[in-house]
């Protein structure tokens, strides 16, 4: 066995074994890299340099900013406002809360880029409401978990930044953001349609408005005094103080809309700012972070400024994981390139088949299998340097941005599949049910997700149309 192949074996095999032995992902990466470097005769100081270089990047600043933004939002209890808005739009129909569950995740995705945060903050409100109204508990949990996956696709999402960094800096983060918007909304709408189609099968209960009157029914269609059917003004909502359009209910509606739209302006700041070229993705993240800060502490005043240190502390949990992972993965990727592993894998995969459709199917199945066992951020960091050369090779000729969206969408499915799915775990814990029972109810939704994944894989314009229009 040559030194290079031994080093390859230690790098990849050692990593998997350490991982299975419950060594944290960051340190598994680092130890296998160091051992492999020692075997291959690479100076270990190079690894220090690589780790530092991995996190010395202006684009990387966007990650702490987005995570801090999400923490401030959750401190300010934005989820209630978002649920109110979703309820205003679809709450009144049969199965209303199920649709609310789909829509609110879409809105929340525009604020936070984390599926887990989505499940824990929205789920803790919506799941008990759904159960109380007579929805199946496992179905409610499953729906919350699946819809939460929109959050990682709809901008702003720090996973997009991680991908752009893992891909080696040649990819514009702004374009990645734009590219994720349509697939994210598409997933939400697909699940929404799934719910609408199955509303009789699951026997969804009727709609209800939480803490609100009937906001939009200004006209009533009913029998009038002379026995004829006609539209007439709904006395409950129509005309107070002589103003035909402004009623008490209407006022409430406007309040709900404003309360929910203000936090969602962050997406306008980010998409608009980056799309119009006013500022870079990192700068937009800082501005959105500042905007959220002002909104929560000075306009809504739903959180106390005294507890801001606490918010900073909370954001450390996610940041410790993500940033250390980026540093370690950079050294790992350097070692992989040094041993020409990506090139070898590309050669091998292309020699198996050079059919674009089959190759993409193989990659998707591989990622789905890995995603079932591992979390999203480590997989993005590890798999991007390996697979990106494969898909951008002439045989497939995929756009790196399209691949990024496919990768993140695929790994989002992994967030809600057992045995390891962080969103599923949190959902089951919040909804007080078991993983087995929830998974059974989720099979249909998994099918919808995989169907969406296939559409996004094979129709590039889903991901590439919006960035091509904007930029």
């Amino acid at each position, binding site marked *: 066995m040559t030194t290079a192949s031994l080093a390859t074996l230690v790098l990849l095999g050692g990593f998997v074994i350490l991982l*299975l032995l419950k060594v944290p992902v960051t*340190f598994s990466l680092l130890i296998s890299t160091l051992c492999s470097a020692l075997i291959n005769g690479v100076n270990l100081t190079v690894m*220090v340099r690589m780790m530092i270089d991995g996190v010395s990047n202006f684009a990387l600043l966007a990650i702490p900013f987005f995570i801090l933004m999400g923490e401030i939002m959750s401190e300010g209890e934005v989820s209630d406002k978002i649920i109110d808005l979703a309820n205003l739009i679809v709450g009144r129909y049969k199965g209303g809360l199920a649709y609310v569950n789909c829509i609110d995740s879409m809105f929340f995705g525009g604020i936070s880029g984390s599926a887990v945060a989505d499940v824990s903050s929205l789920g803790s409100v919506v799941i008990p409401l759904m159960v109380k109204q007579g929805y199946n508990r496992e179905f409610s949990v499953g729906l919350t978990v699946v819809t939460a996956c929109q959050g990682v696709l709809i901008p702003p999402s720090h996973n997009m930044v991680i991908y752009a960094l893992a891909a080696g800096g040649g990819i514009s983060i702004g374009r990645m953001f734009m590219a994720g918007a349509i697939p994210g909304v598409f997933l939400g709408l697909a699940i929404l349609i799934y719910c609408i189609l199955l509303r009789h099968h699951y026997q969804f209960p009727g709609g209800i408005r939480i803490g609100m009157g009937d906001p939009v029914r200004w006209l009533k269609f009913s029998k009038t005094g002379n026995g004829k059917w006609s539209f007439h003004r709904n006395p409950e909502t129509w005309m107070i103080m002589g103003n035909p359009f402004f009623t008490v209910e209407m006022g409430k509606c406007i309040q709900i809309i404003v309360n929910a739209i203000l936090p969602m302006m962050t997406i306008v700041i980010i998409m608009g700012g980056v799309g119009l070229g006013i500022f870079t993705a990192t700068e937009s993240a800082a501005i959105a972070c500042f905007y959220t800060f002002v909104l929560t502490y000075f306009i809504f005043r739903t959180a106390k400024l005294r507890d801001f240190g606490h918010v900073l502390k909370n954001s450390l949990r996610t940041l410790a994981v993500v940033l250390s992972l980026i540093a370690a993965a950079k050294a790992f990727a350097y070692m992989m390139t040094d041993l020409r592993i990506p090139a070898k894998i590309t050669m091998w995969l292309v020699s198996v088949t050079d059919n674009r459709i089959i190759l993409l199917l193989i990659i998707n199945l591989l990622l789905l299998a890995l995603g079932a066992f591992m979390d999203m951020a480590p997989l993005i960091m590890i798999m991007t340097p390996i697979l990106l050369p494969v898909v951008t090779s002439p045989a497939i000729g995929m756009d790196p941005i399209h691949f990024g969206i496919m990768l993140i969408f695929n790994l989002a499915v992994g967030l809600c599949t057992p045995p390891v799915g962080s969103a599923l775990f949190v959902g089951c814990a919040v909804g007080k049910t078991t993983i087995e029972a929830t998974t059974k109810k989720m099979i249909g939704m998994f099918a919808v997700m995989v169907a969406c994944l296939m559409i996004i894989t094979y129709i590039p314009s889903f991901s590439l149309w919006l960035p091509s229009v904007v930029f």
Partner: protein
Amino acid sequence: MNKIAAPKGRFRIWLEENRLVPDPGKMHGSSAIAEILRVANHWAHKLLLYIAQVALALMVVLVIMTVTLRYVFRTGIGWAEEVPVLLVTLFAFLATAIGVRDHMHISMNFIYNIFPSKGKIRKGLDFFADLCVLVCGLFLLLYGWRYAARLAVLPGALPMTGWPTFIRYLPAPMAGFVIVFDQLLFMTGVLDPDDLLYSEKEVDWSEVVKEQKKEALSEHSTEGGDLS
């Protein structure tokens, strides 16, 4: 109650709440050294937390300042990109160390969970994981220090600020030192693994779900006795 004792100042209360003063009950005999080390560790991490928080806040402020200067005053400062990058490097490595201190780093524990809790295999795996982290800490400390020291004697400066190049690489040995310090205290049993500074004890969702499964099963069995 003894009312003669001087009332505790706010500073004193803060110190005690954050466990920054030694517990007088443990300050005798051989446990005194352990207690002093524990307090030193708490102080070190209090400092680390403040540095991390200030770095994070400063990053936001500096980036916003750049945008404001560009659009409102039509000017800019050269170092406004370099300093945030230095800060995020510092922050990333400090966060790594903080993650080690509070066991925040994610690991895959579905094989670990197969074995009985508090069994020998689990203890062995825990020890092995601790050892791996210690090795990484030593690597960061020794090689990071070596690299920074080598750069310190070479001429060279960062392009905008003119600061010496080696400060870019200082976060690595810093984080390495803290990781080694914490990990040695954990492995010698001076620090209790549940003694968390930055967070509440993390909920292990897989364990929570397991508990719920047990509950569901027991409920099920009491209802109909139908356990298939």
